[in-house]
């Protein structure tokens, strides 16, 4: 009995105590000296191919119209400094993900145009202050699957010590303080014969609750929520769905609701989790791959494998706002390389391995997140035999008038089905950022439906 008590107590302690040692005050001082407030290395690299960080891009390019939904490319005069294709890829292999290498090897016409690296991510002071505060105080809970509510308002782990803290940095990347909306966000599935299908067109609203520390009516345990109203295909017009995630998914799992046209009532949606494929995205994405990382982090072990220099999609103004789908953006087997802008950046490398006894379609996944802006980067996933299954490229743009680095369109390749998906396509309508958040009353599912759909 006594031994059982001790084992029990130890197990409990492991669950509730912070899993890892906090960052010391001295280490935290680096956030004003050698590191930026979000934990990126301030200095450039030795080769000069990565510049020093000087606060990001906060200017206003000519021709920019605020609140038009679109951002003019501040670097439009840049020219590629290098083109990587099948012929020279071996030279750059150490800076490429498995997905990029696979595409280069398989398709001789595929290439990566490498542009000068511009560390454009810029944040508001309020966010930076909260992040520096988090360096010494923020911790994960319950063995890493939950994060402390005291960390609200900032990026949680500017100096991550372990893989799971770096994963939280991606999940809690800065998303502004007011909702960001799209009027026509589209999802495309390009089949193995190269034919594109628009599987959905939606109006969306994402509410970054984690950063809304000044709103008294917010539930502090809420992380973020997103709502979408379907505009196409026609049979789903007027369907509304809402997803809310919480900082402790153990106590409060993801909540999802949906409203189906014709019945005029909202119902709780079943759990969208783990490796259930997202049917509306042609089953090209698993639910825990939405936004690259999604849902409870309990099935995998995460190892922080330091930092690496890699070519990631960055400053993709042209690709997101000036590259019309379908004509220009989509080729038969891959997203048009001419609409991609790749830059060399330092990324955090996180290696995830499926825990023993857990079930999942993947055995291993590698994540590569930009040091300046944690939502941008690359992702490779491997099946139970270690074969490359899916890869993702997630680009960013700096919304310079709002001091908001934003993750834009997402391309995912399914090497099993030989198809690819092109999601968060906003070249119609762009993004709008609301000046004021909606009240909790207005965010209730029933109220949302009343406003958005009469079908």
């Amino acid at each position, binding site marked *: 009995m006594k031994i059982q008590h001790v084992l029990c107590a130890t197990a409990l302690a492991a669950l509730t105590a912070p899993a890892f040692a906090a960052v010391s005050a001295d280490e935290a001082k680096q956030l004003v000296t050698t590191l930026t407030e979000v934990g990126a290395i301030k200095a450039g690299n030795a080769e000069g191919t990565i510049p020093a960080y000087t606060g990001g891009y906060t200017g206003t390019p000519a021709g920019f119209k605020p609140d038009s939904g679109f951002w003019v490319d501040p670097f439009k005069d840049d020219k590629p400094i290098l083109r990587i294709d099948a012929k020279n890829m071996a030279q750059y292999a150490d800076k490429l993900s498995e997905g990029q290498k696979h595409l280069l090897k398989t398709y001789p016409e595929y290439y990566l145009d490498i542009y000068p690296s511009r560390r454009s991510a810029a944040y508001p002071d309020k966010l930076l202050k909260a992040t520096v505060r988090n360096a010494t105080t923020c911790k994960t809970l319950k063995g890493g699957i939950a994060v402390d509510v005291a960390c609200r308002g900032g990026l949680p782990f500017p100096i991550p010590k372990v893989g799971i803290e770096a994963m939280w940095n991606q999940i809690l990347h800065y998303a502004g303080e007011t909702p960001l909306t799209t009027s026509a966000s589209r999802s495309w599935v390009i089949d193995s014969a190269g034919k594109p*299908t628009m599987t959905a067109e939606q109006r969306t609203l994402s509410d970054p609750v984690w950063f809304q520390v000044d709103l008294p009516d917010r539930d502090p345990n809420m992380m973020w929520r997103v709502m979408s109203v379907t505009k196409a295909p026609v049979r789903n017009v007027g369907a509304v769905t809402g997803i809310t995630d919480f900082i402790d998914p153990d106590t409060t799992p993801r909540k999802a609701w949906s409203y189906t046209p014709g019945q005029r009532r909202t119902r*709780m949606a079943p759990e969208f989790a783990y490796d259930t494929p997202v049917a509306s995205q042609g089953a090209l994405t698993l639910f825990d791959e939405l936004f690259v990382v999604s849902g409870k982090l309990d099935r995998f072990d995460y190892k922080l494998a330091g930092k690496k220099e890699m070519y990631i999609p960055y400053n993709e103004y042209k690709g997101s706002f000036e590259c019309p789908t379908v004509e220009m953006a989509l080729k038969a087997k891959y997203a048009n390389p001419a609409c991609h802008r790749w830059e060399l950046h330092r990324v955090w490398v996180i290696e995830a391995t499926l825990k023993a006894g857990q079930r999942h379609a993947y055995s291993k996944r590698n994540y590569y997140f930009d040091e300046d802006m944690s939502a941008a980067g690359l992702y490779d996933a491997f099946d139970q035999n270690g074969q490359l299954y899916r890869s993702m490229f997630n680009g960013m743009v700096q919304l310079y008038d709002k001091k908001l680095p934003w993750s834009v369109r997402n391309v995912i390749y399914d090497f099993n089905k030989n198809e690819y998906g092109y999601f968060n396509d906003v070249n119609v309508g762009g993004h709008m950022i609301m000046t004021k958040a909606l009240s909790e*009353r207005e965010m209730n599912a029933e*109220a949302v439906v*009343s406003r958005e759909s009469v079908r």
Partner: protein
Amino acid sequence: MSQTMKRAPKALKLHAIAGALALLGGSAGAAEIDTGNPDLKIRWDNTIRYNLGARVEKQDPRILAGSAYDEGDSKFGKGKIVTNRFDLLSEFDLNYAGTFGTRLTAAGWYDDAYRNRDVTSPAGVATSYFNNQYNSKVKRYINGPSAEFLDAFAWANFNAGDVPVNIKVGRHALVWGEGVFIGAHAISYSQAPTDGQKAVSSPGIETKEVVLPLNQISFKAQVTSDLTIAGQYFLEWKETRAPNGGGFLTGADTAPNVDQLGFTPTFAAINQPGLKPKNTGNWGLMGRLNVEAIDSTLGLYYREFTDYNPANGLQFLTFAGPLPATFRFIYPKNTKLIGLSLSKGIGPFSFGSELSYRKNAALNSSGVNNANDDVARGDTLHAIATASMLLPKTAVWETGSLAFEFAYSRLQKVTTNPQLYKGVGYAACTAVRTPGVAAGTPGNESDACSSKDFFQVAASLAPQWLAVAPSWDLSVPISINYGIKGVAPTSSGGFEKLLSWSIGANLTYQAKHEFSLRYADIVAPSKYGAPNANGVTPLIGGGASGGSLGATDRGWLVLTYRTAF
């Protein structure tokens, strides 16, 4: 379908269809009309549906010999086309800045299978229709071509202080509660009339076409961030459109739209206009509350209504000797319903439950009391538990959905016309007169008499495979609905051993063009009389309503094409 299509290699055949479709649907873009004003959004969408169905099961001679069931059964024999139907649903929505707008929808249809409007009665009694031809009302809905407006309402959103309020005025329909499959025991029972005719004859139909809109005023207010209040007050009452007698998909020949009820080859009672209420009087109020502590949403509902569904007992008004000369259907008035619901996520399931109590509910009745123009009434209790989940990826399927629902119903007490209540142990419950059974023998559930408790289950499994061929997705929907035990106390509320099931295959091309093939059939516990002159024992009744008993031999296969633009 042509034989050559069956033999072509699958991929090639699909490719050919894909080529043809490219000419048809145009781009997948939505039908949003550019008004030039970013605040004014106008949409006009059209959905077309084509159904081609054939009877697969051969006619059961015992049903053809049953005078109450033979007209529908004799309409189309085995192998004949039972539906060759084209439906169009047109939807027009106007939205000004999310502040106000209108919605107008219209449906049109034509079913060539009913071009011939003859009705015959192999059992030898007079048919349900004058001159043995569908009357104009039945012709309109079963054959067409015809059309009608459905939704026609205006709406507005405004704030009353901090409270967002939405109001709708005009013809629309609302469905409350958590139940999905088993409407007879749901909080939403008789919350709107249904188009039963279209529901059975047009597979692939959207719920929004089956629930008929009525003129009403409704509102919804977000009182607090957790509490929603809603209500509706009807300005119009119209009956449910029951499937028409003499059509392939109705088991019973006698339905509200018939001209008459045949008793002998030459004599029939004439159908009078139904007893219907005045236009106002149906209304409801509900509240939904998110309760964080139990991670659930609770609902409270109160409704008062005159049933849109007719009572299952006919009212015989006048007699010619021993036989009725005139009859009519009645619509039971003044039922009050109070309900409670709870919904929450449980593991991978979305779970919903309901509990409702009806006062003065219409019960399973053997007829109508001419003294009070009413059937048996009573207080009944109803419960529903429903759950749905997404299928995880397995070796067999990629994803898909699974949903199931249980319903329970119980009679608390009979309050009016107990002499008409067709319940086990009550006077009106007599056994169906199979050979050897004397008149007046007490009956039981196998005679469609209600028991105190009733249990029913409905389930739907639809595994899905995406990209079985480039841009083609496949799903295989399988559905069943089964009365587990007992006969429900409420009128046509469900019967034990009654099973309806269907299995289909749906292929969707580019998320836009849907092709489905579906087989559906029912099984009902039936009873047969003494052999007739041809040695056939006719169907005379059994443990379900006439509509089901007469339709057990109608197994049919239907091909549907649906698209929208």
